[in-house]
């Protein structure tokens, strides 16, 4: 006979409601969001403010919850890939890649994937990484009050969107990387266009740096604001540019050495605190700027490989290894990969009988990165809070899944 426990499951909710009720007379409860443009989507923050000072931040999320995990339990592995697109919809390729990598490792075919397929995967992932960081930078500018970088970033991002649309047929939600291969080979002339894009984009980055990175107004708004110490970042499970912005040189592309990243030469940018101090908003922003440069390097190397060693042949079939039916052995598997936002993870439980996962859990980097917000925004001004939210670079599609 099992014992019945006597916990009150509503206790925390009641405690929270009491806290809001008991707010002192000189304080004010202020709702920031869910429709506020600087919350980057449908994030609602409940602020307890004393004048202009934020005493406490209570995030409320879930406005964009689309039951990814429940859907995952009733679809087969190949059918889940489009759902991963819609998690972090600014970096769909990277989500596809992480998910597909997990399924391939469960099937044990990860070493059979042709090199050309892997290089194309890395190429499109890095293009998507640049697009994602451009959004992060552009919208960060607009949060701070700089309108021009936003337009410039979107102009440049549009080139990437057009290229990826050319390859996959969709502008944002690609479903391009499949288990065991790709949807199609990249179109003829794609490599050339990548080269043209890199040549076009490098001077644009210089312009953007002059406009925003070294801008004194921007520095005043972001340097020394929202400092996230490294130990706090690790304890809260922050990853990606958040962790590197706190001064740790840690990138899963190098740590796990997955796909063809070991064959590619690139650096891991991390905050050095040239301006402000390590862990503040400016340093997190700077890590993203530096990562764009590194992604451009990766793209150049991939294009070189794709035109020389692993060039297009008539007999190359990117779908050759795509399984007709994906039935992994009974096992648990956790896969992690470096998304533009941080460590994206998928935890699968396969029962060994069906082509549907018994349970699939996604660990969204934005979800963990957002959870540190109440910690680093105690006692800041409301205007600084907006700067901090922007520097986290969250995508609510992934926070809420």
């Amino acid at each position, binding site marked *: 006979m099992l014992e019945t426990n006597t916990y009150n499951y509503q206790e925390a909710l009641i405690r929270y409601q009491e806290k809001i009720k008991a707010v002192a007379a000189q304080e004010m409860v202020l709702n920031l969001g869910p429709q506020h443009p600087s919350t980057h989507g449908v994030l609602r923050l409940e602020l307890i403010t004393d004048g202009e000072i934020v005493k406490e931040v209570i995030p409320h999320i879930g406005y964009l919850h689309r039951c990814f995990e429940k859907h995952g339990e009733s679809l087969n592995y190949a059918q889940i890939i489009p759902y991963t697109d819609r998690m972090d919809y600014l970096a769909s390729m990277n989500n596809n890649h992480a998910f597909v990598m997990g399924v391939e490792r469960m099937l044990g075919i990860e070493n059979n994937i042709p090199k050309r397929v892997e290089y194309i995967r890395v190429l499109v992932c890095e293009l998507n990484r640049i697009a994602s960081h451009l959004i992060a930078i552009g919208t960060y500018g607009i949060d701070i009050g700089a309108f021009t970088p936003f337009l410039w970033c979107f102009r440049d991002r549009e080139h990437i969107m057009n290229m990826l649309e050319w390859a996959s047929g969709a502008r944002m939600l690609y479903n391009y990387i499949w288990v065991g291969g790709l949807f199609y080979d990249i179109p003829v002339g794609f490599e050339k266009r990548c080269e043209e894009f890199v040549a076009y984009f490098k001077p644009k980055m210089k312009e953007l740096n002059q406009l925003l990175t070294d801008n004194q107004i921007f520095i005043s708004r972001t340097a020394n604001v929202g400092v996230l110490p490294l130990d706090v970042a690790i304890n809260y499970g922050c990853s990606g540019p958040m962790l590197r912005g706190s001064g740790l040189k840690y990138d899963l592309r190098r740590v796990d050495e997955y796909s063809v990243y070991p064959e590619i030469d690139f650096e891991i940018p991390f905050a050095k605190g040239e301006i402000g101090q390590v862990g503040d908003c400016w340093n997190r922003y700077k890590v993203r700027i530096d990562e764009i440069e590194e992604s451009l390097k990766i793209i150049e190397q991939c294009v070189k490989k794709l035109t020389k060693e692993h060039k297009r042949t008539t007999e190359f079939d990117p779908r050759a290894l795509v399984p007709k039916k994906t039935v992994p052995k009974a096992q648990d598997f956790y896969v992690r990969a470096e998304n533009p936002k941080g460590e994206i993870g998928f935890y699968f439980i396969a029962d060994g009988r069906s082509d549907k996962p018994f349970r699939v859990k996604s*660990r969204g980097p934005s979800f963990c990165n957002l959870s540190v917000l109440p910690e680093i925004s105690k006692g800041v001004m409301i205007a600084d809070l907006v700067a901090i939210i922007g520097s986290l670079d969250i995508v609510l599609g992934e926070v809420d899944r």
Partner: protein
Amino acid sequence: MIIHKIKEILIAKFGDTVIIDEELDQKQPALIIDPDLIDQVCLTLRNHEELWFDFLSCLTGVDYGLEQKKFGVTYHLSSIIKNHQIVLKTFKENDREINNLPVFKSICAVYKAAEWHEREAFDLCGIYFENHPDLRRILLPDDWEGYPLRKDYQTAENYHQIKIDF
């Protein structure tokens, strides 16, 4: 292999009963830990200078289905400095009654990252975490009934008299 070292360290500290079972033949070997000791085990793994598991990658609440009558929580820990990973699993039997949730120990005091993950597990799987500082629902509305990721979940037809079409 790191898992053998972890076993030695845990058995030396907590005795033989702490590791209930192990899954070593898997691609990612896992240890099945006594659910009453999981917070202590995590603390030990984090603070031990040879293991240094400072990063909680993922925390998953799992409903193992109607036949098995058990719930589980899986912890994926990793070490940034030492670059290794470990999977810990805990299980508890439960009769699936809506007012008798399975109770696990919260590891929020060890990893702050667990706070939102545990709220999510509570919200979607109906797993209660003892000593959690703020165990409210996180993704669903506060007045939602039932736990959607349970295998016996019946889809709600109405929410506040609004019909849910899908």
